[in-house]
Structures are given as structure tokens and as C-alpha cells.
């Protein structure tokens, strides 16, 4: 079953997080009949294998990677026929060309950077459009260099270079939220200095506004860094409580702005007996 939606509702970083965590294999298509910036139709395909981005392009005719290679003058008259034959094979084209010595590892890395990283990173700027993910397709080996990158790592790279965050504004964590690390281990991704600082403060001890003050960064900057860490699965956002009306209630907790992560004591609730639970289940089963 295909997954479809609007980028304005389910953003690309969230899609990538979903595809990476689910180790999905398939094709993600981003389509906009009229791109807001250019006014022209916009179409991109991204192929993933087990949650890793393996290829990207704007065509489905298996000629995208070959064209990139040709543009760089790496296909000569001497090897043209061989390349044409390899395009038809069920092995990533890049790997075949490398094993035959037609391309070197550095050339493959450059191709992957141009074909995948540059294209995918630019997608984070796309404001409108629809996405569709179709699983269980045959991956186009002729479009694959043989290199790949986890979708969330692509997100991290893409968001670091994002200048205009307007598109993702509504997705950013609330300045009153706190962050909690999702693992005690060191991050599996290479973080930059500011990301590391924010990650280290991800123990629920301070909300984002306070973190901004502490690290002498602007609140929007901290929100953006926090968002990056959230969508790559390193921290989770825990919302704070708006205690605006709390003083009017007789039944409130003493919770200040920095304690959204505080565990409520189990003594606040009375235990129920086993006989109660068994009676309840029996009663409910009779109602069905």
C-alpha cells in the first residue's frame, strides 16, 4: 500500500525519519504541479533500500546516472558499448563500472554527491507538494552508484544547510519544551559542535529558552538544532505544562517551568484489587 500525503502536513524530515526507522525499501516521489519558487512543475524520485538513500533523480528511464557520467566525460567511445550493456544488468551500475576500472572510487563518491546529496538536500527547501512512497518495487540498478546513506543522515546534512526555515516553522519544538536523550550511548551520527552541546543538555533539566540563554544562542537557532536532533532520533521533545490557570484549581501539582519530565508519584493513585479487575473484565465481556 502506498503512503501519500502533503509535504506541508508531513514534512520531508519526518518522512525520512519514518523511512529510516522502518528500514523501508521503495521509491519516494515528490511532486508539485507548480513549484512556489520557480512556477514550474517539480518532480523528484528518491530510491531507498532498507532505510538508506541509494539514488535520486527526476526521471524513470534508467538513464539518469549514465547521463551524469557522460556529462563528466567519463564515457568514451571505447567503453560506450560496455556501459550500455552494464545498464541492462541487475547490479548497481556504479559497482560494475568500478570493477571494470572504468570509474574509480573517488569518481563514484563524486557521482553520489551530485546525484543524491545535492538533489535531496535541496528538497528540504520545497514548500509545497505531494509525496508518495511505494514499497516493494524493483530498485533501478542503472541509477545506483552502489553507495548509500541512511535517510536520517541525509536529513541532518540537508537541514544543516537550510537557510530559510519558514517551511518547517510549525514543526519546530516549542521553546518551553525540554529534550531527553533517547539513548545513553554516544550518538551514532557525527554531530557538529552546537548539536553536541544541545544533545548534552538533553536531560530534561532545562527548556529550550533557558538552553538558548545558557549556550548564548538565539531561541530559533536552538529550536532548529533541537529539531535536527529529534528527526534523526537522538532526542525526544517533552512538552511543558501551561500552568496558566493552575492557581484557580484546588487540585494542582507544584510543577515549575523546568520539570515537565518529573515523574508523578504512584502514591497519587490507589491500587485496585485483582477481584475488582476480574469482575471488570467479566462485566465488559458481557457487554460485547
Amino acid at each position, binding site marked *: *500500500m502506498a*503512503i*501519500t*500525503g*502533503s509535504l506541508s*502536513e*508531513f514534512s520531508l524530515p*519526518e518522512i525520512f525519519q*519514518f523511512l529510516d*526507522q*522502518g528500514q523501508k525499501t521503495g521509491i519516494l516521489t515528490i511532486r508539485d504541479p507548480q513549484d512556489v519558487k520557480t512556477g514550474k512543475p517539480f518532480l523528484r524520485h528518491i530510491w531507498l533500500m532498507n532505510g538508506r538513500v541509494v539514488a535520486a533523480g527526476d526521471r524513470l528511464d534508467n538513464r539518469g546516472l549514465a547521463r551524469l557520467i557522460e556529462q563528466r566525460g567519463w564515457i568514451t567511445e571505447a567503453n560506450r558499448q560496455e556501459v550500455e550493456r552494464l545498464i541492462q544488468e541487475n547490479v548497481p551500475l556504479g559497482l560494475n563500472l568500478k570493477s571494470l576500472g572504468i570509474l574509480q572510487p573517488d569518481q563514484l563518491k563524486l557521482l553520489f554527491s551530485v546525484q543524491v546529496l545535492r538533489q535531496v538536500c535541496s528538497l528540504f527547501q520545497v514548500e509545497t507538494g505531494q509525496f508518495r512512497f511505494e514499497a516493494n518495487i524493483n530498485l533501478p540498478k542503472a541509477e545506483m552508484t552502489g553507495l548509500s546513506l541512511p535517510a536520517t543522515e541525509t536529513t541532518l546534512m540537508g537541514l544543516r544547510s537550510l537557510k530559510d526555515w519558514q517551511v518547517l516553522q510549525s*514543526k519546530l519544538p516549542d521553546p518551553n519544551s525540554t529534550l*531527553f536523550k533517547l539513548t545513553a550511548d554516544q550518538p551514532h551520527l557525527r554531530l557538529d559542535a552546537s548539536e553536541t552541546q544541545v544533545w548534552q543538555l538533553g536531560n*530534561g533539566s532545562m527548556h529550550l529558552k533557558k538552553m538558548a540563554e545558557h549556550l548564548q544562542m538565539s531561541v530559533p537557532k536552538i529550536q532548529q538544532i533541537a529539531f535536527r536532533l529529534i528527526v534523526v532520533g537522538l532526542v*525526544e*521533545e*517533552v*512538552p*511543558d*505544562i*501551561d*500552568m*496558566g*490557570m*493552575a492557581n484557580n*484549581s484546588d*487540585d*494542582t*501539582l507544584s*510543577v515549575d517551568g523546568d520539570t*515537565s*519530565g*518529573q*515523574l*508523578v508519584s*504512584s502514591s*497519587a*493513585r*490507589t491500587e*485496585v*484489587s*485483582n477481584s*475488582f*479487575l476480574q*469482575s*471488570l*473484565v467479566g*462485566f*465488559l*465481556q458481557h*457487554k*460485547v
Partner: protein
Amino acid sequence: MEIMRLVVAGTVGAGKSTFIRTVSEIEVVDTDRLATDETAEIKHKTTVAMDFGRLTFGPDMALHIYGTPGQQRFDFMWDILIRKAHAFILLVAAHRPHEFRYARRILSYLNRRVKIPYIIGITHMDCEGAWSSENIKLALGFVDSKSQPPVVILNADDRDTVVQAIIELVQYYMSMR
């Protein structure tokens, strides 16, 4: 009187108030008011404080069911509700993927506040654009299949599926004791 308290949390329009109305033996005490924020685009009225329903099954035994406020902020009412709850169900509308992130925030909030059993209730599975339960679990952050709560699919208007969901929650609570 021995009372078990369940909380029904969830995204806007996932069916929290309906869930409680469908199963309660009393006229549900609701605090629905005209929605004033982005919620108004989805429904005209939303729960501003809480819903309350009850099921009595003995002279001194009752199940109380509370619905959380629907609007996207976590106020003191959440704390009041969750501090005495024995378990909760998180309702998620399958056809509104843009709400999955908010559902995830609710879970983060509740799990950091209390350590009580919970299940996921997926509604609107018959609507166009509905995600599968497997994909919804992923979108909610449940990657490891060994540490996932039970997931039930229900129709908040249908008494049988709502009762089944409550049975599932109570049995899960019993298994976690």
C-alpha cells in the same frame, strides 16, 4: 467504593469524546466549547477541560473514564487527570498523518510524567488516506517490536470495539502488575 480510572488521550478529532460517550452509562459530563484555534478547522467544538464517563458494575465498584483536552497544549488539567490514572489509551486518527507528531508528543509527555500501562487505539482506519497500523506505530516512534504497547483498531462510534479496547487495556494493566 473501589474505582479504576482510565484516561483517553489523543489527537484532535481522533474520537476521545465519542469513545467515552459510546460506553458511558451516564450522560457524559463534557466541557466542549467552540474551538478557537487551529482545532476549529477540524471540528466546531472541542473539549477544553475534560470529558467524564462512568461504568458501574457492582454496589461498590466503578470504572471512571476521563478524556483529555483536545487542544494542542498541555495544561494543568493533563496533570490532574494523569496523576490518578491507572492506565491510558492513546487514540490516533489513521487518516491524519500530520497529527502523528503531536501524538508522539503526547506520549512523550505522559511517559515522562507517569509510568502506567497504556495501549494505542487507532481510529478512522476506513477513511481515505489512512495509514496501516504498522506504519502508524513506526511514525509514533515504536521501532523495536519487543517494546511496543498493544495496538487496537476501533471505531469510537461502535460500542463493541470501544468495549474491546477497554478490555484490552484492563487486561494489559493486569499483565503489567
